């Protein structure tokens, strides 16, 4: 466990007596993509927010690249290489697409970086927003906002990317693009390679989940019940039950907001 890119031990979060997350152990190796699934209110978003530093842990330990980062602020974790794409699309509404990206690219270094504009252009290209660069972000359709969100986090040059339901509520074309990106991001020999070593994402859409993730964790009532490859995990009883119930429900989830996070 000491050599993992990212690891958490005994991670717990309590909101006014409500246990959103209970003693979760989890690790992410370099080059790995892990998906997190589970019913509404299981603590999936809480899990990502704890790792990103957006909320403080109640107890537990978070280690990144051999360093204890449990007490680091969210901005410091970003500069260390952990980027988090929130569940709701959150580009800066009054800024153009290009300025949104510029904002992300400057994190950690406030001096002009040679070749940055080229990098921004290639990232815009990657998410398919090149012809949108001068559009004000609030005017983008939902799916493109999410693509921009992803691009903004990518230009901070993260080593680990955390994405909360990146395809939820997104039109098919954008969802397809996001899915492809997630698959390619962690592979160093693809055009999408941006130095991302690991990806953790929360996903309701099981097709995306099982297609993208090397390993899947199943959260329920704040506990990480099982973890394993998609093939393995599908055979577990609790997951089977969940999937059969979940089959009828394909709509956009609001459950995680119940925990009082947003």
């Amino acid at each position, binding site marked *: 466990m000491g050599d993992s890119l990212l690891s958490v031990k005994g991670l717990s979060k309590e909101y006014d007596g409500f246990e959103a997350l209970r003693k979760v152990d989890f690790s992410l190796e370099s080059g790995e993509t892990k998906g997190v699934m589970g019913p509404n209110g299981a603590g999936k978003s809480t899990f990502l927010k704890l790792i*990103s530093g*957006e909320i403080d842990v109640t107890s537990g330990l978070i280690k990144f690249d051999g360093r204890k980062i449990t007490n680091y*602020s*969210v*901005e*410091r974790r*970003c*500069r260390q290489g952990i*980027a*988090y794409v*929130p569940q709701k699309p*959150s*580009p*800066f*509404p*009054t*800024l153009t697409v290009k*300025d949104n990206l*510029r*904002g*992300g690219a*400057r*994190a*950690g270094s*406030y001096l*002009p970086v040679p070749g940055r504009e080229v990098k921004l252009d290639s990232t815009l290209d990657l998410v398919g927003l090149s012809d949108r660069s001068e559009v004000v972000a609030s005017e983008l359709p939902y799916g493109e906002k999410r693509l921009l969100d992803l691009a*903004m*986090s990518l230009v*901070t040059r993260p080593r680990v990317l955390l994405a909360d339901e990146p395809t939820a509520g997104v039109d098919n074309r954008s969802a397809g693009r996001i899915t492809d990106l997630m698959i390619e991001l962690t592979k160093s020999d693809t055009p999408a390679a941006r130095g991302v070593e690991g990806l953790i994402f929360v996903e309701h859409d099981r097709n995306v989940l099982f297609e993208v993730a090397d390993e899947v964790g199943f959260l329920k009532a704040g506990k990480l019940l099982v973890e394993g490859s998609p093939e393995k995990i599908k055979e577990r009883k609790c997951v089977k039950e969940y999937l059969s119930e979940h089959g009828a429900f394909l709509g956009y989830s609001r459950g995680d907001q119940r925990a009082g996070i947003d």
Partner: protein
Amino acid sequence: MRIRVEYAVVFLLSAFILAATPVFLGKFHLILLTETLIWGIFALSFDLVYGYTGMLSFGQSVFFGTGAYVFVYSFEGIAGLVIPLVLAALVSAVLGSFVGWAVVRVSGARFFLVTLVLAILFHLLAIEGRWLTGGDDGLIVPVGFPGLEYNYYLVLGISALTVMGTVILVKSPLGLVFKMIRDSERRTRLLGYSVKKYKIIAFSLSGLLAGLAGGLYSYISGFASAGFFHWSRSADVVIWTILGGAGTVAGPFIGAALLTFVRDSLSAITGKIYPVLVGGLIVFSVLVFPRGVIGMLGEVYEKIKEGWHGR
């Protein structure tokens, strides 16, 4: 950095008109115009924290008053105009960073209240500290009298420099971070920026401009008094900026000019009830033009341009 051609044309045109104006104006209106430019710089200091960084500060009078008194004291000690003005701006900038450091812990309504209380506190201190400030009677600055036109061109030149400097600032990487904070503090933090640090920088720069305005004002009026700290001056810049167009560099100047001249002409025509009329006008304009005069002009301009290309 790209600046639209239209903006450059408007800037040069207004600079030209303002430079030619003294020929047509009487003494009284020349003084009024000089003051208006100073109010514009003062309002711009507020726009920097509100329109660009999203913090509704009601404490701008603190920096205005401080700049005025720093000017008064350094003018007596040091010969020349430049150094006292620079000192007024710098001391207020330092004070701005301290105030910023103290107030960025809170946001929203609490932020507004804390800055308002700060303004009231400074005003009370200025009244009580007669030995330093001269209280409500104030202190006289022995500025001599270099002439109205000299003063006007001095203030006009400084205003032009301030406008250019601010345009460069808001188009710079630093200005981008200010706008990001205005749009979403959360996302700015998630992209690795220390929001507090940038808010303090914004406050400091805002203090710089407000202090400069205060120094200039005590120079052209020849005195400074505790009233310079009064919170109603903070209210003035809020109104001017929102009326003219927050988040634009020209807006604060337009708002200040509009209200100064409306006040002046209405008080001449209608006598004592003019404050009511001015108040009504402000409420009406804010309701009809939520994005200020600049926002309205921008929309009109876009329509004309569309119509032109549509032909």
